[in-house]
């Protein structure tokens, strides 16, 4: 255990763990969130519960790791202009082992310190202090300092940069409105000493560490100028040896700095000599794996599962909070009438999607966008399909003779979007709603995703349940695609977000989830699983719920 002063709540959690009031996983998450280093937290968890507890990043190490070898990955190779304005996960995977983040969320959905050694939050969750790891070097030989962090955060908040970080709760709590867009508040990022930086927020934010692992939140060297691939300076173990958009991205170990001195990675042993990303489109990745071109793939869809299972190697599955929101524009007829929305929601049986779409994998969606794997998930009574009630509501709303609707589908996460909406179509026939499915190319869908009256939008996994609610359903936020606006909801969410204790927060989530469900903002049928496949000689590689590649501890057995 550490001898640093601990957040008072750590002891509370430890007690809860001992009493069985909180599970081990939740304790680990909360403790690391409060800045206990992950190793310490795991040790503590083991100590409290008496179980042996290991960091999964160090788990599965039955053999001792071997150094060397090349990991070949099939993924779309995209341009890396500016890591702060990345628009696709793939871009961030290319640079994930070159530039690093202050925190890291593991395959187990627990967020731990990375470039920060630990952090402390004030009781009101408005002041967060990050203690940076010492001895971290940039590839050019510079020391990594708190000024570097401040430079990055200031840059993200520049309205002209267009970084999607600016929309996250942490950073939204650092700005004030001004002419020409919102500006960063003076003193929001406070450098205490070369290895300590403090974030002063305008309101309580729970998800600061998680937000700092958002894919465009990589910490860049202040000398950065786009494009990133030309002169990449990072703190990670790898750098680019070769890069061509649409073709390949080859990462090689950094052995010396620009000045010729030996470079020692702060994180200790890394095993792979090289990581090769080869460009294969989503539908071709598994074929490329099958014909031996690569060792693992970015992702494959459920429709390819039978093929994947027939191939040599191991299919990896991650349980996620990635989902499909068939959401209504609550300000557009006929969806501005809550009875219409409620009727549609009642007409759909959310229970069938995991079986029909994902062959039993995945989690049932409950129309409130909080997933069972979220720590603060509050289990509401199961949704019941109510055909009679739906018909009655429709009749009341003046659509007794039937209603014809069109849903826009972009299949942005693969053809399962369409499969899910087709099931909805069949079910809605029973309540007299004729649902037309308007399938369009993904690129076209992203042009209209927040404008269409009824659309099926894919939302990615976020580690905490409150995070996505804050981005997608709070009044007036840019990503509020349903234009949902409810003061009671905003207040309830504020309260949940200001509550650190998970049990208390979970209790507060009941109201939040219930409002979203009752207001019938969306049919959110299912949380999807993520699949990838890896050759058997590749060890210690995990499927990540956001498909973030963490190959630092992966190794290849000979």
């Amino acid at each position, binding site marked *: 255990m550490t001898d640093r002063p601990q957040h008072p709540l750590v002891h509370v959690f430890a007690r809860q763990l001992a009493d069985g009031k909180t599970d081990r996983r939740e304790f680990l998450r909360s403790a690391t969130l409060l800045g206990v280093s992950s190793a310490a937290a795991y040790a503590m968890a083991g100590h409290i519960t008496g179980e042996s507890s290991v960091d999964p990043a160090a788990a599965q190490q039955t053999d001792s790791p071997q150094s060397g070898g090349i990991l070949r990955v099939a993924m779309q190779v995209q341009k890396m202009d500016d890591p702060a304005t990345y628009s696709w996960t793939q871009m961030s995977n290319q640079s994930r082992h070159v530039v690093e983040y202050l925190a890291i969320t593991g395959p187990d959905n627990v967020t731990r310190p990375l470039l920060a050694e630990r952090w402390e939050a004030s009781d009101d969750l408005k002041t967060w202090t990050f203690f940076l790891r010492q001895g971290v070097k940039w590839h050019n030989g510079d020391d990594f300092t708190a000024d570097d962090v401040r430079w990055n955060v200031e840059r993200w908040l520049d309205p002209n940069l267009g970084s999607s970080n600016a929309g996250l709760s942490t950073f939204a709590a650092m700005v004030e409105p001004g002419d020409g867009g919102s500006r960063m508040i003076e003193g929001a990022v406070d450098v205490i000493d070369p290895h300590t930086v403090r974030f002063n927020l305008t309101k309580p934010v729970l998800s600061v560490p998680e937000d700092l692992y958002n894919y465009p939140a990589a910490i860049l060297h202040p000398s950065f100028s786009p494009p990133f691939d030309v002169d990449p300076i990072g703190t990670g173990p790898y750098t680019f040896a070769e890069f061509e958009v649409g073709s390949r991205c080859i990462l090689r170990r950094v052995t010396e700095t620009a000045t010729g001195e030996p470079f020692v990675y702060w994180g200790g042993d890394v095993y792979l000599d090289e990581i090769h990303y080869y460009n294969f489109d989503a539908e071709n990745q*598994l074929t490329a794996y099958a014909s031996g071109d690569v060792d693992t793939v970015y992702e494959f869809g459920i429709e390819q599962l*039978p093929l994947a299972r027939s191939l040599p190697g191991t299919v990896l599955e991650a349980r996620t909070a990635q989902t499909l929101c068939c959401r209504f524009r609550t300000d557009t007829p006929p969806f501005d009438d809550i009875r219409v929305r409620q009727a549609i929601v009642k007409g759909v049986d959310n229970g069938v999607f995991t079986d029909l779409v994902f062959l039993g994998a995945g989690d049932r969606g409950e129309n409130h966008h909080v997933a069972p794997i979220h720590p603060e998930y509050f289990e509401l009574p199961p949704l019941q399909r109510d055909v009679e009630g739906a018909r009655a509501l429709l009749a009341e709303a003046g659509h007794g003779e039937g209603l014809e609707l069109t849903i826009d589908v972009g299949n942005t996460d693969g053809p399962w979007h369409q*499969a899910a909406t087709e099931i909805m179509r*069949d079910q809605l026939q029973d309540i007299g709603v004729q649902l037309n499915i308007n399938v369009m190319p993904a690129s076209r869908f992203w042009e209209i995703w927040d404008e269409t009256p009824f659309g099926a939008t894919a939302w990615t996994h976020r580690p905490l349940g409150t995070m996505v609610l804050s981005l997608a359903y709070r009044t007036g936020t840019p990503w509020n695609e349903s234009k949902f606006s409810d003061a009671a909801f905003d207040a309830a969410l504020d309260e949940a977000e200001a509550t650190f204790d998970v049990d208390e927060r979970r209790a507060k989530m009941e109201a939040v989830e219930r409002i979203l469900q009752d207001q019938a903002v969306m049919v959110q049928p299912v949380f999807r699983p993520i699949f990838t496949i890896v050759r058997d000689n590749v060890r210690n590689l995990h499927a990540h719920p956001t498909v973030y590649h963490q190959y630092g501890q992966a190794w290849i057995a000979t």
Partner: protein
Amino acid sequence: MATIPADLERPRLLDRLTSPDALFVLIATMWLPLTAYVLLGRHLGPLQPYVLLPAIPATLVLYVLAIRAFRESTVAVIGTTLVFFWLLMAVTAPYLPLEDPNRPIAPFTLPLTETRDHFFWLGADGRGRDMLSRAIWGCQRVLVWGVTATLVAYLIGTVFGLVAGYLAGWWDEIISFVANVFLSFPVMVLFIVILNYLGASGLNIVIAVTFASAPAIMRIVRGLTLDIKTRDYVFAAQTRGEHPLYIMLVELLPNVRGPIIVDACLRLGYTTVAITTLTFLGLGLQPPDPDWGLMIRESARVALLWQFAYMLLVPALSVSSLILGFNLLADGLRELSLKD
């Protein structure tokens, strides 16, 4: 085009069919309901289940007539049979004892097996939908859009070809130039532009095929017109003082008809390939309704194992047999026209 038969003066192809008027009525009875059924679908309201009924006898009668007319050419008979097989499937699909083509039943069921009280003649796809039903329903959209697109391309190509060939001069210069622009324009860009403005639909295909085919058709018609307009009967009409429009429609059009029909059959084949390809690239017809191109597209992800290859073979053989039908029909018609 090297497909133009030498003999232009006696286009007897249509004459072989006993009475052109009755023929047009029959074609209309077959085609209009089918087009209406595919284009309007549910908007037909209570009529929907009955709309295709008159098309069934019309198709059968047309088939018998065509076989009789083409009996001298085996190739043409085979081609006609293939094409009419799919036409018949298209008009009878709603009345056949088929499973709903969009209903998921049992994923990855192999052909000729019974699962969940349902016998799958051709198996089920990765989503569990009956392949037989999808293959039969799938021909409707390919046929309707393919033929409509070709027809529109021909209308436009023929009109401009007649004008360019007959009026010559600046008309010819301008029309030929525009045709050249479209002929050398990358078709893919055209498709995507149209797709972006009109959305993905059959209309998209009609416009795309028109842009891609009409210039070539225009060239053929222009060439034929240039040849025919020196004939005596055109001069005679000119001396009678007929309006150019009359000369084009009454004197010229019927005389270029023969070679065009042969070319049209070939082009129907290409159009069907083009639709399949566009749909595969995600630029043509869109799901969820069954369509051969979409089935091939889906199979490209799923059917990569031996035992699942049937998911590709069913739509691929279906579309190929239709294209083969068009191609053989073209060959046969050419053979017949040479015999005349």
